[in-house]
């Protein structure tokens, strides 16, 4: 079943067309990667899916419903969650609190419930806590749970971001360069983690520059260049695709 479908999606900034007429879809349970040189429009595409930008043209459907005119927070509560290329953790919060924020859209207490601490408010808070604790266990962040998140090493911060995204209980998880700035050991771990996340039943869309990781993990790869989708297919097909090699792999990886 198609979990996400984009038809003819275009985004222009003034004269620059960052994403140009892209058709794209993701099946449930897949790991799909988007690759492409810097400035190819990958992150813009993410921002279109998550509602940070509105597409100039085209339709984005999530679970068969149009989402391209929804606000980011509405899209998140429908089940798409993301991490950021340049980590954006909440700088005054601990790891636990950061991940707990992911549960915000799954809880309902309003201002009066909160002030009077109604039974439901306490109950949902407890449930949220338990879920967050599970996520922290899953990501092996127990030892740093009460540290201020932004004071931790880079790699750990990336994991916290993933945890925060998982806490929104998404059906589709968008990871924007999760392995950027990591050493090879950490990259191997990240690869294992992404696979583990998929095995939990999440669908994953990935932007990544590290070819080893992309080719090792993806069910399918889409290649963007100057905003156009120039290829799509199984990793081994992409590795042999002429256009891709000339546009991208040829120069970067060889």
């Amino acid at each position: 079943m198609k979990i996400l479908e984009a038809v003819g999606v275009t985004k222009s900034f003034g004269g620059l067309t960052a994403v140009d007429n892209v058709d794209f879809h993701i099946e449930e349970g897949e790991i799909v990667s988007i690759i492409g040189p810097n400035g190819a429009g990958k992150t813009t595409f993410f921002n279109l899916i998550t509602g940070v930008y509105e597409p100039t043209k085209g339709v984005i459907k999530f679970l068969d419903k149009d989402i391209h005119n929804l606000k980011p927070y509405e899209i998140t509560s429908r089940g798409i969650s993301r991490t950021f290329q340049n980590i954006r953790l909440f700088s005054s919060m601990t790891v636990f609190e950061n991940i707990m924020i992911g549960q915000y859209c799954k809880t309902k207490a309003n201002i009066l419930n909160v002030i009077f601490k109604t039974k439901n408010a306490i109950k949902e808070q407890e449930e949220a806590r338990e879920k967050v604790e599970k996520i922290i266990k899953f990501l092996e962040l127990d030892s740093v749970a009460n540290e201020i998140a932004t004071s931790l090493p880079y790699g750990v911060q990336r994991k916290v971001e993933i945890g925060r995204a998982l806490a929104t209980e998404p059906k589709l998880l968008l990871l924007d360069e999760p392995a950027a700035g990591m050493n090879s050991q950490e990259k191997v771990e990240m690869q294992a983690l992404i696979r583990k996340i998929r095995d939990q039943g999440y669908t994953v869309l990935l932007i990544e520059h590290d070819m080893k990781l992309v080719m090792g993990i993806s069910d399918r790869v889409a290649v963007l260049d100057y905003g156009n989708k120039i290829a799509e297919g199984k990793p081994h097909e992409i590795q042999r695709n002429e256009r891709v090699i000339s546009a991208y792999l040829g120069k970067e990886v060889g």
Partner: protein
Amino acid sequence: MGNLIDVLIKLSIATVILYFVIKILSKGFDKITDMIVAMDKEKNRKLIYLIVGILLVLPFLLSRYPYILRTSIMAIMYVVLALSLNFVLGFAGQLSMGHAAFYGIGAYVTALLMVNFNVPFLLAFIASAIVAGIFGFLLGVPTLRLKGDYLAITTIGFGEILRLVLVNWVEVTRGPAGIPGIPSPSFFGFTINNNIGYYYIILLLAFFTVFVSNRLLNSRLGQGFIAVRDDEIAAEAMGINSTYLKILAFVLGAAIAGMAGSFFATFVHYVNPDNFTYMESVTILCMVVLGGLGSIPGVILGAIVLTVLPEALRGIALYRYAIYGLLLILMMINRPGGMINMDRLKGGRKDENSRGSRSNKVLRRSYSSR
């Protein structure tokens, strides 16, 4: 002009003294903060009971010092005001500089209702909160698009426009002459006519405000506020409707400021536009930042210190506001995170006072990060 040298010497001495006082007090504040952090729930509760106990018997201890009692009432009222601004500034990270307007709206609503229509205090009080809250909403909605400095100037503008309306709408507000003869509040036939009574009213309001602040901060909504303050884009990506939260903060802050205004009107029995100037907004802002943005104990302390200090400096009347200005500057240089830093309260990094609080990224966009 002839006293130039004299003035300069005195101010230099004041600067040096302030500098060392801040250095020494900083250590003290850190100790206190660490103590609060280290305390377990049981001890924490005991400490709170102790403080509440002291606050409850205080007016009887002070009954022979009416001036101190009066200052205490004002200090507690400013605690309420500072905490109400803390919703907007400390929690949601919106630089609002017209907070005195809501305070003024509350005061005038109560004054007008009680003087013109003999409305009982409780009703007027509730009406003040509601009207101020509505104005908070009206200010909050259009200013959502504005950030940082632009928001600051717009809120200043809002405050100034309100003050000018109070001055110029003579038929209703009686203009600069103000509204005298606001009756004392009475509850079920009991009229409060001494300062001990007022003390308990405002103390009750302060407890209420602290209670709401605390419940909110530890709830999903409070954490949502902090998320919006730290990084609005990330907050939205996590499913937080930042628009809703910002308006909520404005409304809540305005309503509570309105309650403080309502109290103020009946306490001094007289309101005029001069009570609600821009300087008043700035004073409240200073209380929040000096105390420690977002930290409830810090803001309380900030409000108390900045109310008591000018009174304590009365002895050097001429110099007190110059020293007040110096204090602000020196505090910001030596202790940028405020007296009780919110991050430190969480037991986060211990070297914070050299860098200031990280807890307001929205307001930051600092020199160094550009």
